[in-house]
């Protein structure tokens, strides 16, 4: 039997990981992207890999420590995280998160303020304590998406950049070819993991996938002295100290946005930079003198309940990670690959991520939530 021909739409973390898993399983894979590899949210996020809320969590945790070896390229994965509080309310919330994780069998230790300061030299007198995830960690988003892309190529997979999808050919309810600006690609199955564009592509196939897009922002400082553990956040921020030493953090209010089917042409940041800087200076007072050298924004898509959709209709597998895709990508790619090839996820139950939960959703679901663009 000749290899199955699979087209993956979207060269972000989820799509590239899926393509890599499919190629590992022997499929003939082509990835199409409207732009560059990992150029949207997949390459510009906080890099966290600690998603205890997800059914893909165990697979995420199993895979990250092996990813450099499996891919053959560095991801900058670094294990474990510390979340530190500078207000009593934060401490209460973090303690609840610790207790919840321990109930679920994920080890999280409580740290008092002096233990945090011992582990996080940049912490200040305002630190009230924290929690230490004995799992998870963080990686470098752009380096990781490029690693997926290169690993896929090493397995014979093909990536076609600057090639937005323009349509689908179908027969008997199944997609037989994907049309793009670079040509038409015949296929036995298709996986769509195109971020905010996933909804519009699904509509072309008669599938309603409710999504709204938002813009979120991050900042980065010049390098700080290396801490033993770079995965330090809290105070309403997510982020990390990179292996270079830079402090890269995001968080805070998002902006709901609208744009055309080719995605956002520009991703501006705003004076939210100043609010992020304040939060970071509060979190790590020992770094308050460090220069902020960049800010940036990314665009993510959200489902109405904020949870992912990984589901299959006929020979089309759809995936949106609802704005939490990078860290879970080793596992989401595995799940997508399973759905494409076998119709079901081989390693865990993902039934609650099905599309049918949005059947009959009100037409004005965005208005109801206040999720309209300004």
């Amino acid at each position, binding site marked *: 039997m000749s290899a199955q021909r699979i087209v993956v739409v979207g060269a972000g973390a989820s799509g590239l990981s899926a393509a890599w898993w499919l190629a590992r399983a022997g499929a003939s894979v082509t990835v199409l992207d409207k732009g560059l590899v990992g150029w949207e949210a997949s390459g510009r996020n906080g890099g966290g890999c600690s998603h205890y809320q997800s059914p893909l969590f165990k697979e995420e945790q199993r895979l990250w420590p092996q990813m450099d070896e499996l891919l053959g390229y*560095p991801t900058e994965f670094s294990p474990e995280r510390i979340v530190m509080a500078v207000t009593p309310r934060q401490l209460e919330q973090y303690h609840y998160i610790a207790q919840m994780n321990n109930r679920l069998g994920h080890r999280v230790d409580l740290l008092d303020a002096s233990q945090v300061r011992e582990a996080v030299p940049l912490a200040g007198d305002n630190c009230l304590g924290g929690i230490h995830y004995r799992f998870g960690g963080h990686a470098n988003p752009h380096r990781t998406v490029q690693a997926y892309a290169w690993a896929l190529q090493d397995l014979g997979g093909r*990536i076609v950049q600057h090639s937005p999808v323009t349509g689908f050919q179908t027969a008997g309810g199944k997609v037989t070819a994907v049309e793009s600006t670079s040509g038409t690609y015949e296929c036995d199955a298709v996986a769509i993991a195109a971020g905010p564009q996933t909804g519009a592509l699904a509509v072309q196939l008669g599938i309603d996938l409710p999504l709204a897009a938002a*813009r979120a922002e991050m900042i980065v400082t010049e390098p700080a002295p290396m801490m033993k553990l770079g995965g330090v956040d809290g105070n309403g921020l997510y982020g990390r100290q990179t292996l270079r030493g830079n402090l890269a953090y995001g*968080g805070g*209010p*998002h902006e709901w946005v609208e744009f055309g089917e080719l995605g956002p042409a520009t991703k501006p940041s705003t*004076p939210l930079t100043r*609010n992020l800087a304040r939060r970071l200076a509060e979190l790590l007072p020992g770094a308050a003198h460090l220069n902020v050298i*960049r800010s940036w924004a990314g665009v993510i898509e959200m489902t109405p309940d904020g949870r992912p959709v990984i589901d299959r209709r006929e020979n089309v597998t759809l995936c949106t990670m609802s704005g939490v895709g990078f860290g879970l990508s080793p596992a989401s790619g595995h799940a997508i690959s399973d759905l494409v090839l076998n119709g079901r996820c081989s390693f865990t139950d993902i039934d609650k991520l099905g599309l049918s939960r949005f059947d009959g959703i009100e037409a004005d679901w965005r208005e109801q939530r206040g999720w309209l663009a300004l």
Partner: protein
Amino acid sequence: MTARKIDPHAIDGKFPAPTTRYAVVVIGAGEAGCAAAVAAAQGGASVLLVDENPVSGSAIGNDVPWFFGARATTAVGNSGRMIETVFTNMPWLEAAIEAGVELQLGVCAWGVYRNGPLVGSLPGQVVGLADAERSWLVGFDRLVLATGARDLALPFPGWNQPGVMGAAALRMLVERYEAFAGRRLVILGSHDLGLETALLAHAKGLEVVAVLEVRGAPQGDPALLDQVKAAGIAIQCGVHPVEVQGGIDGVERLVLSDGSTLTCDSVVLAIGLVPMIELHDALNGARTFDPMRGGHIPQPDGAISAVGLCAGLPDTGFDHAAYRFDWLGALGGACGGDTIVCQCEEMTLADLTGVQPPRYLDRPPALQQRSLKTLLADGPANQDQIKRLTRTGMGQCQGRRCRDAVAMILAVESGTELSALPLATHRAPVRPLPLRIIADWEESEEMRTGWDVWMGIPTQWVPYADIGTPYEEENRRVLGGAMAL
């Protein structure tokens, strides 16, 4: 009609209006910016004129915004005295004060913001300003960019030593700061910039050892050339540096392609100036590439305009781009694979063309097989992609030292016209600013209470196993719907 429902964790309504606003804000108080400010004030407008000079000692150490090459004296650390010196050396500012312009020195502009594609949350057009103590936002009707031009730096062996610097930085230190630490200069480039630099140095009593020209003949205006010759300054043509030799204080000698050696303490790159379009580009303003005017230049963009060198160098019929590539070719020929290209991140020419990561990462065999050549097989050259993979241009100088050279190297290596290569993006803050200074310590109550670490969707972070169990409601109750924090 019912009120529009607002997501409490979205940005809607969380940015307060700026407490100060002006009809016209001018960024840069050089002669062009000052003239624009005076004209606007004489027309009856309220005008704010800001200038980042004197920049701080730490900015000078980072070569922001000019390529100072560690040749400033310690006087730049005395900000009180510096501000007086700089003001004294900008005599045109008297006219601005007389015209009623509000003048602020030592104030940089680090970002311009307005509503447009993907942003609708701002209270009008604002410019972010900062001094040594704090940052703030100012509203404007019209913004005039008069930010000038910065130095083009090109790598060659030893260019990362103290004493290798740019012509614009030299002019600033000599004319405006009175704080130049060098004495014996070699100047690279004999076009107008190089000749003017030589005459300036000579007039200030510095020794100009030589002006070096890579082409076969001097390039600048004949009248300038006559002045340089009259001053007894040697111009050596058809020759270029191959190595800087130095000691603990930096440059001591410059070895040339003809085998000769020049003794000097500073090497001044006067090969070209690059219009400072950071603010305009960070705003995604429209621009064009004009090789006769120094590269990427801004196009008039609604309420935002540009004057002076940041609007483009004067078009004298000289192809600056071609000239710069001649220098790149010559200096590049002197480079080895181990020549540093990005000083901040210590990345070499071989790292760049090999698309290799920094040395804190291992380079496994598969990675070592990758290179710019393999990346170009996947798609057109893109400097931002190279930046993220190699970190060249990602350092604390915000890429000022190497971004232009890297773009030129990518253009050569990929066979792409420089004009067709996507400009590596500029991002606010376009000046490095400490967290404690750029921070908004007076943020709105709405910002404080509406803050969430990520989206604030109550169902998003409920553990999968807890969905549909009593724990789901407990999670919502304790975490306040999300992780509001």
